[in-house]
């Protein structure tokens, strides 16, 4: 990889776009807060700014923007890892059944603590969102654990892919059964969770979330060389001295961890993990993970911020479900990328 001028300028441009979208998220919403007020607030200054504006930014918009930023970056990297280790352009973070595990966890919680069982105390407020995060984490990590244990015994990535898909179906079926026996209110609450949201994380939790995702991203960076070798296929990678199984396992661990943590706090966010690696590859016309890793981080964060901004555009009643926006933007994007690259895929299939 040579650091060329065009590479540098493309990265600079992306970072500027990211910064722009971050500010846009702080400025815009049901109340427009001018940039000249936003910047001092970011540095903790309250001078000359109304309490309301200060509170909106510090308590809500900043947390939400940061959650979108790290979730987008994390999901995009998880998607990149999955696509490379499964050598499948359609792999995404949900492919291992982790999101479906999280959904099952949340469905169980809502059924046993909601109106269905005659209890109401976990639906709202701080304990409510903490409970939902805990249930989603439990479900997500249970599935991740199964996948990691299974993959130690079955080295074959295709088998793991199929097992992950089957776990998804089982999780989906159990969730369906629970919904069937649940009350309307609980189902509605569950559906809302399933739409995803970047606004459930408070100022304290966001710090932990950022730290965990940062560590996982650093770990992912350490895998760039084995990931690049995997572009030649497992057998060539092996012949070039790579510990193929071990590296695939680490990639599963990091990708799974990112997905589990993000799904626990933001719900199952669709399409970012699938679409962003393709966007990054097309943008940089490269498959080199030393380029793709930072490129997916920045692009993923930008796309999540863009979708979050779109969801909260004034004029909509409250905010739109984030999952609907990411899907509406992500799906056509994937179609466009795949169609424009059809030549390459059909030649090699």
């Amino acid at each position, binding site marked *: 990889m040579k650091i060329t001028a065009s590479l540098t300028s493309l990265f600079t441009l992306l970072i500027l776009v990211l910064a722009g979208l971050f500010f846009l998220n702080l400025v815009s919403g049901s109340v427009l807060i001018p940039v000249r007020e936003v910047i001092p607030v970011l540095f903790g200054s309250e001078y000359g700014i109304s309490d309301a504006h200060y509170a909106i930014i510090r308590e809500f918009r900043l947390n939400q923007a940061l959650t979108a930023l790290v979730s987008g970056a994390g999901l995009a990297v998880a998607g990149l890892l999955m696509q490379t280790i499964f*050598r499948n352009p359609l792999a995404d973070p949900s492919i291992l059944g982790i999101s479906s595990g999280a959904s099952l966890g949340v469905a169980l919680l809502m059924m046993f603590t909601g109106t269905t069982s005659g209890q109401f105390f976990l639906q709202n407020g701080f304990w409510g969102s903490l409970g939902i995060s805990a249930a989603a984490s439990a479900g997500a990590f249970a599935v991740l654990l199964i996948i990691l244990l299974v993959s130690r015994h079955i080295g074959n990535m295709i088998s793991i892919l199929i097992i992950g898909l089957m776990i998804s179906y089982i999780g989906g079926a159990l969730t369906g059964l629970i919904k069937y026996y649940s009350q309307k209110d609980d189902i509605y609450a569950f559906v809302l969770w399933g739409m995803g949201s970047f606004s459930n994380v408070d100022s304290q939790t966001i710090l932990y979330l950022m730290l965990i995702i940062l560590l996982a991203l650093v770990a992912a960076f*350490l895998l*760039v*060389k084995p990931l*690049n*070798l995997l*572009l*030649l*296929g497992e*057998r*060539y990678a*092996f*012949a*070039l*001295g*790579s*510990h193929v199984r071990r590296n695939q396992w680490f990639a599963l661990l990091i990708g799974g961890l990112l997905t589990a943590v993000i799904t626990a706090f933001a719900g199952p966010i669709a399409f970012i993990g699938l679409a962003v690696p393709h966007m990054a*590859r097309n943008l940089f*016309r*490269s*498959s*080199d993970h*030393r380029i793709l890793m930072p490129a997916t981080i920045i692009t993923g964060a930008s796309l999540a911020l863009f979708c979050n901004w779109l969801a909260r555009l004034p004029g909509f009643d409250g905010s739109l479900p984030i999952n609907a926006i990411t899907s509406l933007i992500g799906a056509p994007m994937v179609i466009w990328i795949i169609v424009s*690259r059809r*030549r*390459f*895929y059909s*030649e*090699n*299939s």
Partner: protein
Amino acid sequence: MLITEDLLIGYGRKNTEYAPLLPPINLHIAQGTICGLIGANGTGKTTLLRTIAGYLKPLGGIIKLGDKQLNNLIPSERAKNISVVLTDRIEDPFLKVRDVVVMGRHPYTGFLGKLRQADEPIIDESIHQTGISHLQHKRMAEISDGERQKVMIAKALAQDTPLILLDEPAAYLDYPSRMELMKLLQKLSRKHGKTILISSHDLEILVRKADYLWLLGSGRAAVEGMPEHLILNGSVSSYFGSESLFFESLTGQASFSDQADAVYVSADKYSALWIRNALVRKGFRLSDHSTSLIHVEYQNNTYVIKNEQHTVHQTDSLSGMLDALSGIIH
């Protein structure tokens, strides 16, 4: 030099013993030569190649390359001793030819795969040797199968290993591309001292271009030798059963010369054909006149070299005859 000692190959698991595919394998390849690994489908060609490459553990015995025991090497060391060219397709849409050759240097690069200054000339040289300089900035998806095979050989060269293994390298190639590939491999073995093992069921091309053959037959002990030797002693027909298929195609391939060092072969028509084939590959000139000074006579499995009617050498080994002949002529 690659040597297998009582090597047992097959698929086994930790707790269960599977019967090895073949009797203990004791074969070798001299350094700087091309060896063809041939046998009908299902005789264990691929299994043997994969065992040497390290994909499969031997069920018993050892594989040695020089004084190193290959089956004990850690991955990073193994990658500095063996490189492979497989039939696996590379499906990435953005990977360029040069990127693939660069990957050959990765056994020598650090944690993030950053090339050192010394790596660039090795990559350029590998690209130059394989004649793909004009392709290096093309995508892998844009080049032909023959070109792709050359790229993978360039990658193997960049890996800078004494041993190169090729699994069915001619699988997707037409006849001219196959001949070109073999010429390239011949250059690499002669000029760069690479030891090359090619598995293939393309008997014809290996008989013409390989210095040595390993012959596998299902359930039988593997045999080795120069291609013509294995044909003349009947091994090829007994293991493969189809040499008559290309017998015809070889007649008339040899061109004759009137120069003083040209060799006249005197033998029955069938044997003469193969002896000529060996002579041509080793760079000798052939004569079609019995007035030629140097004669090679073959009768009752014995080679007799005569210089101006005097017997100067007598041997029952083809390679012994060729060595003696080169002593006389060069």
